[in-house]
């Protein structure tokens, strides 16, 4: 409890530091500083609609963070969450479009499951290469991100293209493949529940199963894990594939719950944010949960500064980076004192 309070205090302080930096930024850009903060908070938390959008935003961030975090616990860096999100989205869209005529309500969950498998399958490439060929997983996952983008571009502009849109997007998936909305007016969907359930699941697996124990052992000292009889290659492969599955779920949700089609640009760098979130959350599901929520607020809030005070989008990016750096700064200063 004391710890939790300290954590909260830390983030509050970091926000204060960053708020100051942001104020300078806004003032330099000749904006209205107070108005800026009002909208910042109001747009992300203050209204039902805003809050719903924050949760929607949190959904891929949380799942991505879990994906990175899970791999991290096993000692691996999954930088390929963006690619795996695309893979999941592609798989989900694929079945949904293939079964366009099947108006069965089971289609939506089925598409989500296929999306999960898609993410897992895409992650299986770095997983197998890492586990049995000791090929650096960072390299492979980063490269596959590019591959996934081009694959998405191919599908969205080629075979699945919605000609009428004139853009790199596919046809709409059938209604049966759409996940239910929580509130149509606010635009919130059920994805956040799937994400939260995933967080619980990841926690359970890591902390309450022997397989999770093996993952953690692997992450701490691979050699010792092997000496103790753990099949490290299999655990490595499994943990990376599971990581991809989480990202795939994020992709599937974006398609079946939010956009209802595959879109080039489906993930505006969620993979990068996911790494930030996982590291800030110390690769623990609870930490990731908190970090992804904070990050969603940050993204939504700083984005709204464009609208309210005319801050350029680029300044919002600068602002986001400053916030995270302040968190790191506060964190470091605190641990030095301890």
């Amino acid at each position, binding site marked *: 409890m004391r710890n939790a309070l300290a954590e909260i205090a830390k983030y509050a302080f970091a926000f204060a530091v960053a708020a100051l930096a942001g104020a300078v930024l806004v003032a330099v850009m000749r904006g209205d500083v107070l108005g800026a903060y009002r909208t910042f908070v109001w747009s992300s938390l203050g209204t039902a609609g805003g809050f719903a959008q924050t949760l929607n935003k949190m959904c891929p961030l949380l799942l991505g963070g879990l994906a990175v975090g899970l791999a991290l616990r096993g000692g691996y860096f999954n930088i390929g969450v963006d690619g795996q999100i695309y893979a999941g989205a592609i798989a989900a869209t694929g079945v949904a479009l293939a079964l366009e005529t099947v108006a069965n309500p089971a289609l939506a969950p089925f598409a989500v499951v296929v999306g999960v498998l898609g993410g897992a399958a895409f992650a299986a490439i770095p997983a197998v290469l890492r586990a049995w060929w000791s090929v650096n997983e960072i390299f492979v996952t980063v490269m596959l991100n590019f591959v996934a983008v081009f694959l998405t571009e191919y599908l969205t502009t080629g075979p699945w293209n919605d000609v009428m849109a004139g853009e790199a997007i596919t046809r709409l998936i059938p209604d049966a493949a759409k996940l239910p909305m929580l509130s149509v007016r606010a635009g919130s969907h059920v994805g956040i529940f799937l994400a939260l359930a995933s967080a619980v699941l990841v926690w359970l697996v890591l902390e309450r199963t022997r397989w999770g124990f093996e993952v953690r052992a692997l992450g701490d000292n691979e050699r010792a894990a092997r000496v103790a009889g753990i099949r490290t290659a299999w655990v490595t492969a499994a943990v990376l594939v599971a990581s991809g599955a989480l990202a795939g779920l994020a992709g599937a949700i974006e398609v079946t719950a939010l956009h209802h089609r595959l879109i080039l640009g489906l993930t505006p760098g969620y993979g990068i944010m996911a790494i*930030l979130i996982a590291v800030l959350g110390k690769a623990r599901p609870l930490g990731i949960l908190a970090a992804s929520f904070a990050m969603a607020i940050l993204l939504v809030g700083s984005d709204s500064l464009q609208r309210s005070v005319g801050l350029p989008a680029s300044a919002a990016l600068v602002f986001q980076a400053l916030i995270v750096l302040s968190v*790191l700064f506060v964190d470091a200063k605190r641990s030095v004192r301890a």
Partner: protein
Amino acid sequence: MSASAVVTLLLDPELWRLMLTMAAPLVLAGLGELVMERSGVLNVGVEGMMAVAAAVAFLTMLKTGTLLGAAAAAMAATLGLAVVLGYFAITLRSAQLTVGLCLFVFGTGLASLLYRLVIGVTTATPTVQTLPRLAVPGLAEVPFLGTVVFTQNALVYLALALVPVLAFLLVETSLGLRLRAAGENPRALDTVGVNVRALRYGAVAVGGLLIGLAGAYLPLAVTGAYSDGIVGGRGWIALMVVIFGRWQPGWALVGAILFAYTEALQFKLALVTKAVPPQVLLMLPYVVAIVVLVRLYQGAEPPRALGLPYERESRL
């Protein structure tokens, strides 16, 4: 296609020259990152740092017209970012991955913010003169190699020259020895009285300068203009070049060349084949890189202390 046509396609000197022009920024940034990583500091913010450098170089060039000034300003900017990285990674011992990603986001934002502040919103794209080609007298006439290597711009020569210089520095000098040690076992270096912190700061600064040059290269040598996506993932590729190169300058050069070659070739292929969707060709450099890596990489280990903050009294 006949075999000889394939060979002509693959060995087209113009293709190879273009490849080298495009490999140069990867080499420069790759070497910069390599210096940092060999000292134990991971910098995943290359993409953002290059973006800042590109913007600063372009704007300086536009306003002052001096090439050296533009390059220097870009390098100064990335040096600043590198010092920030150093402060967090070395002094504060923050998670280097996080700091690097922050730099990426920060740099991406800062670059276009600077451009917006200086240029504003217009529908005319301001441009500057790009670096001229310098033919090396005598060598430029050598068949094939002359076209490929010796009719490039000055920065390409610099990038190529830096590879052996850095390799030599790492292997044959005291500084290189210490640098490698810092990335492998900083405590061992500490116990023999070498200032690990200063060494790492130095490496980060040098890396920052090189990455700055790489970023400046894009508008100054390739496009003559700045656009928001100008770095276009090449910062990430530079990072990959270091892994591909197993943290050795020579192999990093090979990685950059392989990547740039496949990329350039792919545009040629796009002209001769229509059977393959363009996106599949566009994937080619990335897929080839993975396939080649699988053949080459196995067992190569990163510097053991890479990414780990060094804390003298900590046992973990």
